[in-house]
Structures are given as C-alpha cells and as structure tokens.
C-alpha cells in the first residue's frame, strides 16, 4: 500500500545478533540519515537459542502501521527461521540467506531476487562467529543501499561494546567486499 517505505525482516535464532542488526539499521536510518524507522521484535521464551525475528520499516515519512505481514526484504540466518518466515516475503522481494545455515531454500517465487551469503562461515574465518550478522549487514548495504555505508559504520560503533567494534566493522566491510564481488551470476 505504501510504496514510499521499505520493510525488512531479519530472522534466525537467539544469539546470532538478529535484533542487533535491525536496531543498527534503524539507528543508522534515524540518527545518521534523518529518515524514519520503526523496529519491532519478538523472541521465544528462551533468552538464547530460540527462534527470533525482528522487523524494520524504513521510510522518508512518519510510519503508520509499524509491522507488515509481507516484507520487501527477508534476511534469514537459520533454516528453521527461514521456514517460519519465507511466506512473509513479497513477490518481487529480495531474499538474503546465510548460505551455510539455510541450506534448503525450497520453492522460491521466481520474482524473488536471492542472495546466498556465507555470512557465519566468513565471520568464523575472521575470528568470531558472532559477527555473521555484520557480514550480512555489509552485504545488504552494498546490494540495497538502504542506508549508507558510513551511517551503518557509525551506528555499529555506537551500538556494540568498544572491544568488539573492530571485529564488527571488519566483518561489515568484508560483507560489502563480498557483495561487490558477487554479481549474482
């Protein structure tokens, strides 16, 4: 209904930084780029390990209903979460999956653009599997340009503990590099 806004749903399991990714995206949009964002979340009763999902709506105008049944972008970091949320991606939408943790995409509508990103695998190579979300965020930034690289970097610096800033920004930059190389061929 509202073509001026973009909705992104992140899903995975607790501890992957699913909610943090969405908060950083919203933080970058609102405090660095001056646009509107609304982020809502839900998680299982377990603090760690259960499925979790978070939705961010980005808009140049104030946001009405902050949640959507159908999203423009779906980011899936875990197979079970992907299965739970794959039907929430719009026709013509964009799907980002952690290729190592979402091995089976099943039937995907041909209108959907799919990006398979070895995010967690890359993060492990860089030294911390916790940074898979940042690899993914970098990849998404490069492919969508929803918010700028600099805005996201600034938001990352403000949102993670000081001792993790270096690891997270390195993972983010690696995601951008991978996206530049990945032409979808």
């Amino acid at each position, binding site marked *: 209904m509202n073509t001026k806004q973009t909705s992104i749903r992140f899903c995975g399991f607790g501890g992957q930084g699913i909610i*943090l990714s969405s*908060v950083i995206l919203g933080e970058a949009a609102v405090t660095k780029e001056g646009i509107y964002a609304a982020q809502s979340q839900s998680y299982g009763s377990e603090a760690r390990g259960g499925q979790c999902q978070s939705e961010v709506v980005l808009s140049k105008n104030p946001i009405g209903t902050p949640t959507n049944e159908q999203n423009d972008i779906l980011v899936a970091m875990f197979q079970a979460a992907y299965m739970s949320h794959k039907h929430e991606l719009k026709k013509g939408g964009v799907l980002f999956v952690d290729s190592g943790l979402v091995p089976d995409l099943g039937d995907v509508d041909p209108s959907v653009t799919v990006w398979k990103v070895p995010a967690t695998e890359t993060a492990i190579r860089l030294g911390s599997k916790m940074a898979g979300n940042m690899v993914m965020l970098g990849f998404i930034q490069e492919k969508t340009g929803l918010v700028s690289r600099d805005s996201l970097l600034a938001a990352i610096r*403000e*949102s*993670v*503990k*000081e001792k993790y800033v270096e690891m997270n920004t390195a993972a983010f930059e690696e995601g951008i590099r991978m996206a530049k190389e990945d032409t979808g061929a």
Partner: protein
Amino acid sequence: MSAPELYTNGNPLLKYMRQDKLPHFFCPGCGCGQVVSAFLRAVEALGLDLGSMVGIGGVGCTARIPVYINMDCLHGVHGRTLAWATGIKLHKPDTKVVVFAGDGDALSIGGNHFIHAARRNLDVTFVVVNNFNFAMTGGQVAPMTPDGSVTMTTPYGSSEPPFDMCKLAVTAGATYVARTLTSNPAQMTTFLKNALNHKGFSVVEILSQCPTHFGRYALGSGSPKGLVEWIKSHTVPASAAEKMSPEETAGKYLVGEFVNVEKPVFRGSTVYTPSTCGCGGKEAK
C-alpha cells in the same frame, strides 16, 4: 466537667496530641493508651520536634495511635506502613519516621514488607503493639496468637504456631530489636527512646492487653487487670532466661533488648558511577 476539660486536666503530654481528636476510640483497658503515653515520654525526653516527623499507621487499633499524635501522618491502608515509610525515607532521609502497627498489620498482611525493611536496614522505628489478635475486626486469629487460643475464627482453638517477631526481625537484619510490655512503662519508654535514637531499622514489640477480644475469647475474662497479669506471668527478662532451662522458659516471652548494632542504612540506588555504565546516555543494547 466537659470532656475537653477532663482531658486537658494537667496531663503534661497533651501538648503533643491532637486534642480535638479526643476522646480516643480505644476500648476501656486497652494497652494502646499506655503505648501513646510511653512514646510521648520518649519524645519529650529526647526533645524531638514532632512537626518534622511523620507517624504512620495502617489499619487496626494500633494504627490509630499516630492519628492522635500531632505530627504528619499517613493512615488507613492495611499492611503497607513500611512501604510508605520507605518512600519517605528514600526521598527525605532526614525525616524521622515512626510506624505503629498491630500484630496483624505488621506480621500478617505486612509481613513481606517487614522482613524486607529489616533486611535493608531502613532507618525507621517500627513499634508493634502485639495484642495477640485482630482486634479492630472483632477478635480473629493473628500471626502472634498463642497456639491453641480460642478466637472468633478459631472457635475450637488455633492450630498455628505464632511468630516470634523479635527473632524474625533479628534474623532478617534489623539493627535494634527489643520486646517490652505495657505493664512496665519505664522499660517501654526506655526502649522507645533507644529505638527513636537508633540509626537503622529499630523494632520494638510491645505485648499489650486486648480485654475486649483476646481477653474475653482466649482467656475467658474481659478484665484488663487479669490480662495484664497473664501477660506478666508469661514473660521472662532475657537476661534471666540465659540462666534458665528450656523447660522453664517454654511458652514465655523474653523481654529485653536483643540486638543493638550500627550498620549502613538503606538509601535506595542513588550512587552514579559513570565508569560502570557504557551506554552513553541511551538504552542498553
């Protein structure tokens, strides 16, 4: 002689009372009047300014005590006296706060607040008038009713052991704990003075007579004198009890000061240490 004349007839403590509230509503022979008297003697001896103090009463006969004393007063909610006291002390730590509670108010509905106030060492004086039953509501069993007592809700005798609230207070962390009885006004005044002077959670349990209910139902007599004698005969000075056998002290209330120590008093969270807070003014991530 009119009632006001009768009540202003030379009692030196009347100046501390809301005289327009008299006559009070306590039954003839009730111990609450003796508690008021002892408390005001303590106030006078310490030279306290009632105008800067807050008296708190919940619901019950004892809870009416602060209503008759000429100071700021919070009154009328059952069991929440120490919750009120906490709010006042954390916002205005220099305000002296004294709570008057019956055994039901203090230990039944208010029991949870009591142990937490003791644990925190809230700087408040907690005067508990233990008349062994819920009196205002007509004489029902209470947490300090002696085991086996007949009350309006235990017509065949209660089957619940009572609290020893002084032991409870000590265990929970109160820093001044004493027990006394209405028939020993000098000791009552001394303990109340000590409690009011104490920095920290000070608890004074006063064994008191309720001839109207506890006397009539549990002891079979509404005689105030008989009940006062019964209380006296069931008490032993704590110092004497040390030299007595368990058999000799069984069923007796120890009277005296059980603890009197200094510990830091509760202030709530007021200390801000920037170094431990890495959130830069925002929510935690």
